[in-house]
């Protein structure tokens, strides 16, 4: 009768098939780290080529580049993917090397706040340029 009789331990079959433990995250951290890294391959190449094309050309050239809709969209994606990937990476480093539990928790939350804030700041700057502010 019980759905748990055929499975070991106390987890039921629905819990097992969803693959989510008590953290409710499963493999999402690992997976999003890979997804953002794949996204960053073309975005990074675009960024390098774009910067090399305007290097030393001054403010007007930078604005001319970032005002193009394609450039603005790519830069927003680059900033967003970069800080998403950075937040995931810093979390792993903190989890590995910070052994004091309260300090670890606070530093991970602080790192996530900072990454989110810097992503918003970068995207705001691109939008301000793109909309001609």
């Amino acid at each position, binding site marked *: 009768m019980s759905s748990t009789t055929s499975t070991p331990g106390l987890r039921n079959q629905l819990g097992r098939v969803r693959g989510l433990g008590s953290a409710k995250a499963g493999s999402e951290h690992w997976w999003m780290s890979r997804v953002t890294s794949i996204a960053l391959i073309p975005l990074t190449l675009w960024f390098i080529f774009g910067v*090399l094309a305007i*290097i030393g050309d001054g403010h007007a050239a930078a604005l001319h580049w970032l005002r193009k809709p394609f450039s603005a969209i790519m830069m927003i994606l680059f900033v967003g993917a970069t800080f998403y990937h950075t937040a995931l990476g810093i979390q792993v480093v903190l989890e590995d090397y910070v052994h004091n539990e309260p300090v670890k928790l606070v530093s991970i939350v602080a790192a996530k706040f900072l990454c989110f804030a810097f992503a918003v700041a970068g995207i705001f700057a691109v939008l*301000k340029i793109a909309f001609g502010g």
Partner: protein
Amino acid sequence: MSNGSRPLSPHLQIYRPQITSVLSISHRITGLVLAVGSLVLVWWLLAAASGPVGYDRAAGFLGSFFGLLILFGWTYALWFHFCAGIRHLVWDAGYALELSEVYLGGRIVIGASVALTILTWIIALIAW
């Protein structure tokens, strides 16, 4: 918890550095360097958004000796993390996991990241 007299397994300083371990920690270190570099990117974007005066100040700092040093380190960290990251994706897909392939991949990562850094700076200095 006391671990005063318990025997400990050999730790990092006991082992000879190998290409596998050195590249592994380098991937981590370059990731942290890039986290700092991305702050420079946001600062540069905000400077561009602020107007020509702010932009010239930012460009002036980045074009100074110290600024160029930061940009050079950032470029190498970027290309290293880029190449080593692709190597990780190849492993995640289940390829190149034999030890000989791991060594070869490591050498390719070192060679490619150095070559891409030099190439980027040749183009940058010509364009500048």
